[in-house]
């Protein structure tokens, strides 16, 4: 058997310099889980504060900081990197590639995210976190020092995110194995395509919006100075042009995970593959034209509200196509309820509940009542926690054996599933009612005798169930690393290419590039009675990229420059950008032809280097 990419002894240096997509995926994963715990802890603080009326556990300012950082951390520093982890782990394997198109950029993207997240979170220790909500509306946000950390942290991590998106797209478009046509790509890969496109076109307006905030705060620009003729609604528009696609770019990869897992656990081809692809693209497309549904109460007038309301409802149609296709994949199949399966299956009703409340919100006249209340909180936690988080858990149990070569513990997994399911329904179902009963969101406390006490208490209890579930997950991971059951190559009787290679895969993934002859190529070969894929080439030396420390240092430079801006120190700015610039310079003048490795079974003399 081929030696796996994990067989080498790893030093810290290896992890800092790695450009292997699997290892970068792992970095993303653990960073993401860490921030998920941080964001979850913040959620817990929120729920503890709101457990009783007039609770004085957190004061208004602290609460706003915790609430802002909860939203920011969860969306940008937990959900996004966790999904990027899966993209890094899985996409090259699914398309039969040995690496990504730009391994250097991939690593740079990770480190930019890492330092950006660090910078934003450091605000807690440096005079207060941002406290104007994850939306950071002007002019309120302009009042707080914490906003600088928000702006620069997101700017840095956002740049990393855009790079990664470009990298994934290029990989998928130039590095597919022969025969892997676009319409044979697994749905997770497809959703990566659309999500990456959304990143490219949505994170850029965010970058713009953040620049406006930054210039206003640091260089006294006048964009939002109403007395001078500025306008604060401009910021809302730009923010939501980003903000709405942002939530879809999170949910689409989740859809992708669910599509792959449901097909695998049902042992059945995904029902309506073509309409699934079409729906994915359509959701991404319509997603760009609905942003103003977050702004119905801004006062844009009935015509604009109606147009955006109806456009928003239309997103329900392609999403519905997906939901029914998943159900009909199960119907007629043989559904296996392992932990991955449980999470994938329970994704469906949870997401649908969140989706239909979304359609209710899209009814603009009714949204005057829903807007900025706990009804909205309930809506998006159903789609996010019931949807994205459950999909992430499903993907985790599903792909863990491939990536780490060990099976996560099923018993612990099932316990976790039930605790989590109960927990999040307890927490968020009741919040629909709270919203209708008049409870606004983003309140640090509330008066007694408004009929909200019991519901809030119930909601907080649910959060403890979720905490227990997450702790079980952490235990599960530790136990599995310590003495988990070894995984076989194809534990779920899988369908896609990643299951045709060893668990964990060798460094170069595919010793020989496979030929793809059908959708679900691995399943197809198995059905033909084959034990392995057909190959496009004989065994030969494999060209792989060199590891490099430069990306990390380059990202570190932006980190320094970020603090330079925050503390108005030109020295810091120049030092930081100087570091980054020197790295770029070195990178561009130093030729890097990569290295050649020898796949197992091929005897080539050691030490001979074939770079030109």
């Amino acid at each position, binding site marked *: 058997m081929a030696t796996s990419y994990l067989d080498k002894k790893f030093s810290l240096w290896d992890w800092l310099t790695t450009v292997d997509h699997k290892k970068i995926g792992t970095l993303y994963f653990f960073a993401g889980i860490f921030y998920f715990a941080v964001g979850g802890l913040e959620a817990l603080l929120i729920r503890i504060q709101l457990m009783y009326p007039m609770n004085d556990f957190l004061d208004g300012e602290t609460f706003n900081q915790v609430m802002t950082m909860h939203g920011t951390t969860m969306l940008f520093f937990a959900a996004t990197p966790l999904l990027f982890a899966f993209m890094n782990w899985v996409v090259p394997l699914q398309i039969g590639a040995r690496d990504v198109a*730009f391994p250097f950029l991939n690593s740079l993207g990770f480190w930019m995210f890492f330092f950006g997240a660090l910078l934003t979170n450091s605000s807690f220790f440096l005079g207060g976190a941002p406290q104007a909500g994850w939306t950071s509306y002007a002019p309120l946000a302009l009042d707080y020092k914490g906003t600088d950390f928000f702006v620069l942290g997101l700017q840095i991590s956002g740049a990393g995110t855009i790079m990664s998106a470009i990298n994934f797209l290029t990989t998928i478009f130039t590095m597919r194995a022969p025969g892997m046509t676009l319409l044979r790509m697994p749905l997770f890969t497809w959703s990566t395509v659309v999500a990456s496109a959304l990143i490219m076109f949505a994170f850029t307006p965010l970058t713009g919006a953040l620049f406006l905030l930054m210039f206003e705060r640091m260089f006294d620009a006048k964009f939002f100075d109403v007395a001078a003729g500025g306008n604060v609604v401009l910021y809302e528009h730009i923010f939501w042009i980003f903000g709405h696609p942002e939530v879809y770019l999170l949910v689409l990869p989740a859809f992708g995970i669910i599509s792959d897992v449901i097909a695998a656990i049902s042992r059945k081809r995904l029902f309506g593959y073509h309409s699934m692809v079409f729906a994915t693209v359509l959701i991404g497309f319509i997603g760009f034209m609905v942003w103003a549904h977050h702004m119905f109460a801004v006062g844009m007038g009935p015509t604009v509200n109606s147009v955006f309301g109806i456009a928003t409802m239309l997103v329900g149609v392609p999403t519905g196509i997906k939901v029914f296709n998943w159900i009909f994949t199960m119907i007629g199949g043989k559904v296996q309820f392992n932990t991955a399966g449980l999470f994938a299956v329970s994704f469906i009703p949870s997401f649908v509940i969140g989706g239909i409340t979304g359609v209710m919100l899209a009814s603009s006249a009714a949204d005057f009542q829903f807007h900025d209340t706990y009804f909205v909180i309930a809506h998006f936690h159903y789609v996010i926690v019931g949807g994205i988080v459950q999909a992430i858990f499903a993907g985790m149990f599903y792909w863990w054996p491939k990536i780490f070569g060990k099976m996560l513990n099923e018993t612990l997994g099932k316990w976790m599933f039930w605790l989590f399911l109960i927990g999040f329904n307890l927490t968020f179902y009741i919040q629909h009612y709270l919203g209708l009963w008049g409870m606004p969101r983003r309140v640090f406390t509330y008066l007694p005798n408004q009929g909200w006490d019991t519901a809030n208490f119930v909601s907080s209890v649910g959060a403890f169930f979720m905490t227990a579930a997450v702790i079980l997950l952490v235990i599960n991971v530790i136990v599995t690393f310590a003495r988990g059951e070894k995984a076989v190559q194809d534990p779920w009787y899988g369908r896609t290419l990643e299951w045709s290679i060893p668990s964990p895969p060798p460094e170069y993934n595919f010793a020989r590039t496979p030929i793809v002859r059908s959708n679900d190529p691995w399943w197809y070969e198995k059905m033909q009675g084959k034990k392995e894929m057909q190959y496009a080439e004989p065994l030969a030396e494999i060209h792989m990229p060199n590891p490099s420390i430069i990306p990390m240092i380059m990202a570190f430079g932006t980190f320094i420059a970020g603090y330079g801006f925050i503390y108005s120190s030109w020295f810091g700015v120049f030092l930081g950008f100087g570091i980054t610039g020197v790295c770029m310079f070195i990178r561009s003048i130093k030729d890097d032809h990569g290295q050649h490795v020898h796949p197992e079974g091929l005897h080539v003399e050691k030490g001979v280097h074939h770079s030109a």
Partner: protein
Amino acid sequence: MSTLDFKANGLPAHPEKATQEGRAKLVGFWLYMSAEAVLFATFFGTFMTFRNSVNGGPTGAELFAIPMVFTATAILLVSSLTSVFAIMAMQRNLASKMRFWFAVTVLLGASFLGLEVYEFVEYVHEGHTFTSSPFGSSFYTLVGFHGAHVLFGVLWISTLLLRNINRPIDTYVAPKYYVASLYWHFVDLVWVFIFTIVYLFGMVG
């Protein structure tokens, strides 16, 4: 999949996309440009919003003068053409000719920047500054951001030229040159919108 399939006396017809790495670079760079287009659009949108919010300061019609803008435009257009010449030379494996045209491009870019700095200084004297009004803030954000791109392009192409001053053209460096020239075109393209939307619209009022 060797990196270099160098023929004895010549290059493949399209050396920039002869290798997998080269092809990926091109695709990736196009993606990058489409993303940047949206970033510029954000600043264009901001500018459009505030183009009349002058806060008592000078208006676009009072500030902008045709000769200066036209000169700047002409410089940038010509530099785009020279970078095309450079790439054509590269594709014919004429290294020194390529270097010459790229050097011209860099010089033109630098003179554009000089002109822009001069222009900004003028405006500041007339009371049109970054902090004077939303119009000022959005003007300098947009035009300055473009200027920063020009500066980056100048530095980038110069670095490429210096680094490879004695090096023949091969399929390893060809994509680098090609991508740099694409970038330069992109910067020129953005300028087309800037002179139309910022300057010409501004003069019309």
